[in-house]
């Protein structure tokens, strides 16, 4: 499997507390001293990546997170691949009645986790450095998200630089009251480019269901355009709890 195609499998999400797309990174930060714990499972072909994350809002515009990525593949047992420490800083926030506009930058870096974990990460294209910018317009009826990220992906043959651009639109058919169980449908597009001309475009339908502090999400990212890449559809499920 080629590295870029593997990066297609494992992106680096960072914690968010509001409605969030399934695959596109949102710009939302946690409220001050608010915590969140999340677990995502992605399956691509016969490879499964499990990402667990804990995040804390240090200041209203500043969230820090710790994330672990473990991978289960046919040729290797279920093993930790990376530990990431991440941060997100909100640069712009516009509050209007029932409308929220946000722009944030974020980054994540790998912590040392041992040679074995490093080899797993390199075999599966898990990035060790990532920076990005993300924006959103959120409203009662629906949301729109855009995200651009750059990542360094160590592989067994050297580092690869990769960029990902994502767009997502969310529609809330029946906006619920506070605390009500509420569903939101997402349509997402993710364009991924890596050094050497590797290009992948994927489209994803997604569903997010939440109450006031619990989230369940499900989405399928289907590659519709591939150049020099092997990319299978990715199924992702995730849960998140706000503390």
């Amino acid at each position, binding site marked *: 499997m080629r590295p870029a195609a593997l990066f297609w499998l494992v992106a680096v999400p960072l914690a968010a*507390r*509001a*409605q969030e797309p399934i695959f596109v990174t949102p710009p*939302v*930060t*946690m*409220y*001050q*001293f*608010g915590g969140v714990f999340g677990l995502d499972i992605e399956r691509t072909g016969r490879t499964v990546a499990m990402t667990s994350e804990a995040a804390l*809002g240090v200041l*209203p515009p500043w969230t820090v997170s710790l994330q672990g990525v473990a991978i289960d593949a046919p040729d290797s047992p279920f093993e930790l691949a990376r530990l990431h420490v991440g941060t997100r800083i909100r640069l712009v*926030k516009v*509050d*209007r*009645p*029932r*409308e*929220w506009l946000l722009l944030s930058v974020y980054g994540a870096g790998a912590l040392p986790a041992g040679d074995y974990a490093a080899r797993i990460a390199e075999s599966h294209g898990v990035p060790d450095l990532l920076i990005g910018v993300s924006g959103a317009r*959120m*409203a*009662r009826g629906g*949301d729109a998200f855009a995200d651009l990220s750059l990542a360094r992906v160590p592989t067994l043959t050297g580092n690869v630089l990769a960029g990902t651009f994502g767009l997502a639109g969310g529609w*809330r058919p029946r*906006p*619920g*009251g*506070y*605390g*009500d169980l*509420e569903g939101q449908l997402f349509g997402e597009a993710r364009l991924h480019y890596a050094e050497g001309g590797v290009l992948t475009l994927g489209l994803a339908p997604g569903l997010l269901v*939440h*109450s*006031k*502090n619990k*989230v369940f999400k499900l989405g399928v990212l289907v590659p519709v355009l591939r150049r020099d890449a092997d990319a299978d559809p990715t199924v992702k499920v995730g849960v998140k709890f*706000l503390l």
Partner: protein
Amino acid sequence: MKNALVTFALWLGLALPTAAAAQVPSPGDSLRLHVDGMVCSLCAYGVERRLGKLDQVERVKVELDSGLVVVLLNPGAPVSDSTLSEEVRRAGFALRGVQRVKRESR
């Protein structure tokens, strides 16, 4: 001039306690906070958490469609607009206005 000073002192003596008393909530008094930016339960969860931690607050009710946060106050525990504004800011939103509602007037 002397009369004016006496009048002012009397006014001060009468008016200040009255003003202070107006800030001290009676049983059933509440606040209606107009909060901009709230669009969903997950977003507004922080507002409930931040305001709910205040000693002066007995209960918080968020109304997403109207952008209102109704805060039921503990009797005898005044809370200032600046405190409310700060907590809403820490929750990630902006407080546009505060309406103090006496129990009798509802």
